[in-house]
């Protein structure tokens, strides 16, 4: 017992001594194997490039899956390109939803169609959403025809460590092509909602936040221990000294759960730290500091009092849902205002729908945040370049720039407005038909 405590203390001290500077995001390749196809030129639209302002009456050319040229009216269009006149339309990069459950659910009420959470234990880092991702889900076309071309797919929030996220493209021949980056990040949820053993008569550990935090610490310590054993074995195994090599013996028994934690403990991949209340946020941040996790903050919906502190961490924040109710004593707009308040403090924010069926409504949350003081260009960044940078896919996504993937949307107005109708969606330079289960029903009955 004492020994364990000593180890924990020593560990905390060592970790605290290390630098707290966030490590740069690993760069990911978000492209599926290049889809050759027609060359498309969008002509006459208002280009919201995100990275270099607005170009009126612009031209975007997409070739071999990527944006090959972009600029004003004089931009050369290659011979043979299909020219789409988008005069009067707005052209912008495909939107990125920083948390969805797309492909993990079909009909919410039917358990057999839900693969959102493995709730047999709180610590399930070895669950990979790519194992459940249903590429043919009817929800995906519904979402993409409203201009969302990429998304994080995350398990539900019910476990402290529910598994690992994948980053998807909302079109592709199969799951293989759509799962652009597997295991891109790992959620760590600490909102109180992970407590599920609250029946006193059948109490089971962990019952409280204390139990959950301790369980998390132990899991990380176990993983570090596992890592050390592996390293020691490998050291012996690769020793030049034959005697040492022989001593190595059999490798440590493989443990998928602990193994899953290693890239996160090594700071190679980000942990998405979900907390809502200030106390939970502080506990979660302490945990992250103690184990040197590379952090993306998530929710912070009720932490309006800690915004300066959040800004001081320099961490990016996935904001929302901004539709979360404020506390009874609070003004009605406390939660709505959080994106604006964070952006004002220089925090890099990204929006998420936290949904599947209604992921298509992602841009409207950003639009509402504009009402509460977020600058419209910041709001648009929080749906494009910011998440692209946060998730390490900005080489391919997040702006209209030559060389990036042809994930481009054309709409008849402000991308953030509820009234705006999307007219064209391109993913990797290919036009996506504006067809879903819902448009088919519409066309069947609207006569």
């Amino acid at each position, binding site marked *: 017992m004492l020994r364990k405590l000593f180890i924990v203390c020593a560990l905390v001290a060592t970790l605290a001594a290390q630098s707290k500077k966030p490590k740069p995001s690993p760069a990911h390749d978000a492209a599926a194997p290049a889809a050759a196809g027609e060359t498309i030129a969008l002509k006459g639209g208002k280009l919201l490039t995100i990275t270099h302002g607005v170009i009126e009456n612009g031209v975007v050319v997409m070739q071999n899956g990527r944006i090959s040229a972009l600029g004003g009216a004089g931009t050369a269009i290659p011979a043979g390109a299909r020219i789409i006149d988008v005069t009067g339309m707005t052209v912008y990069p495909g939107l990125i939803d920083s948390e969805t459950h797309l492909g993990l659910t079909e009909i919410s*009420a039917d358990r057999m169609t839900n693969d959102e959470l493995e709730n047999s234990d709180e610590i399930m880092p070895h669950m990979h959403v790519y194992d459940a991702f249903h590429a043919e889900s009817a929800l995906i076309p519904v979402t993409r025809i409203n201009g969302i071309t990429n998304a994080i797919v995350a398990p539900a929030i019910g476990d402290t460590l529910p598994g690992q996220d994948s980053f998807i493209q909302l079109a592709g021949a199969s799951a293989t092509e759509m799962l652009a980056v597997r295991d891109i990040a790992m959620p760590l949820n600490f909102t109180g909602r992970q407590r599920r053993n609250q029946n006193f008569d059948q109490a089971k550990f962990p019952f409280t936040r204390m139990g959950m935090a301790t369980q998390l610490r132990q899991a990380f310590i176990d993983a570090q221990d596992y890592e050390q054993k592996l390293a020691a074995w490998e050291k012996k195994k690769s020793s030049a000294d034959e005697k040492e090599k022989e001593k190595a013996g059999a490798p440590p028994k493989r443990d998928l759960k602990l193994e899953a934690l290693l890239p996160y403990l090594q700071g190679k991949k980000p942990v998405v730290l979900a907390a809502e209340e200030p106390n939970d946020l502080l506990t979660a941040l302490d945990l992250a500091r103690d184990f040197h996790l590379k952090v993306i903050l998530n929710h912070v919906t009720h932490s309006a009092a800690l915004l300066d502190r959040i800004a001081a961490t320099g961490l990016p924040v996935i904001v929302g849902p901004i539709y979360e109710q404020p506390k009874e*004593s609070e003004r*009605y707009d406390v939660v709505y205002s959080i994106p604006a308040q964070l952006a004002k403090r220089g925090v890099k924010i990204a929006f998420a729908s936290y949904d599947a069926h209604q992921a298509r409504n992602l841009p409207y949350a950003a*639009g509402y945040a504009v009402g509460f003081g977020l600058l419209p260009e910041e709001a648009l960044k929080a749906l494009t370049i910011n998440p692209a940078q946060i998730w390490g896919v900005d080489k391919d996504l997040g702006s209209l720039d030559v060389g990036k993937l042809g994930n481009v949307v054309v709409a008849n107005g402000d991308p953030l407005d*509820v*009234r705006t109708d999307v007219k064209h969606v391109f993913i990797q330079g290919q036009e996506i038909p504006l067809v879903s289960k819902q448009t088919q029903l519409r066309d069947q009955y609207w006569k």
Partner: protein
Amino acid sequence: MARRSHMFGVMLLSLFCVLGRLAMAQQSSEQQPAPGFHNDVLIKGGTILTVTHGKIENGSIYIHNGKIAAVGQSVQAPANATVIDATGKWVMPGIIDSHSHIALDDDVNEPTNPVTPHMMMKDAFDYNDKAIYRALAGGVTTSLLLHGSANMIGGQAIVIKHKYGLGRDELLFPGAPQSIKFASGENPKRVYGTRNQLPATRMGNFEVMRASFIEAREYMRQWDDYEAKVKKGDKDATPPKKDLKLEALADVLRGKLLVQIHCYRADEFLTEMAIAKEFGYKIRAFHHALEAYKVADKIAANGVAIATWPDWWGFKYEAWDGIPWNAAISAHKGVRVALKSDSEDVTRRLNQEAGKGIHYGLTEDEALKAITLNPAWIIGVDERVGSIDVGKDADISIWSSYPLSSSALADKVLIDGDVYFDRSLPGLGLTHYKEGQ
């Protein structure tokens, strides 16, 4: 048997409330204009969306004693009227939510019997619930607070005005007709079916309803017989036992209640309308109504309205065919369409929901009506609220920009001519509420 005696207890408890409520409704409807509102207000300079007669640029509204006294480009108002400068703002009627469950704590369903028409929402109304305030801050001035959908017949609703900070009775919409909530489909099936009780199927659902109305008819006949005997001077006539449940069902058959039916599937709209025809009552509106677009012509022909969401779908089987064009297809086939919240969250931004209606095919006017005059009709208060017309209650919301959009905010919200919410005020922005009162 045990349940029956429990039910009887509940009935007794509710008796006084029922009688009190009927008396109140009657009294109030005779007292128009409503007493107690002493105000002279001039809203000046905004773009007014009247709902019934188009848009007035740079218009004004004169409010006198709680009512709209004049509206137009220039209106006469006394010099001492309080002026609200709405220059550069948008002015529309207060939003009306025709399907809400706020301010009821968790007392939305009495899931102990599939037919509980005598459960009176007023008995559970928590008028201090801050959800009333948060909806008000989103421009909502009137809501229909309905029972849930655990039961085929859930109980009788209340209509409130969002005068947050006032007492319980002041929040009740004076003279509003009484609505009753029916349900159908998966929810009653699930609630009773999982207990191995009737109803566990849609067959059971509708059988339970028919049986209830047959019982109510018999009850009415007994009372008719008794009254006929009394009329004839029969001194030995004994009255049948007063039964609150059957009394409430009889009120449905007598056409005294507005019937609001939770219903998703196309086949169920048809069955509901057939049962209504069989027993001779009218359906006011189908709520949720996600498949209305499949049988919109039939719904329109029966004069039934729908209160739907612009885009909810897929959360259960009966919501699997929900499409966001439902409102537009139904409206274009002649159905009166309201967009409602059914949600403590969404009720705070029904203006956005109406904007989505435009996205999915409603005209701007239809979308505006869908959160004002049409829900007012569903609730039965369209003569009183839902448009900016002379003689109507001065329930008005003033917006920072075109309201049916993503980023418009309600700046001020007036009810009966008094400001109840003002975004520019510190704290909660409320004018009639003190913390801890």
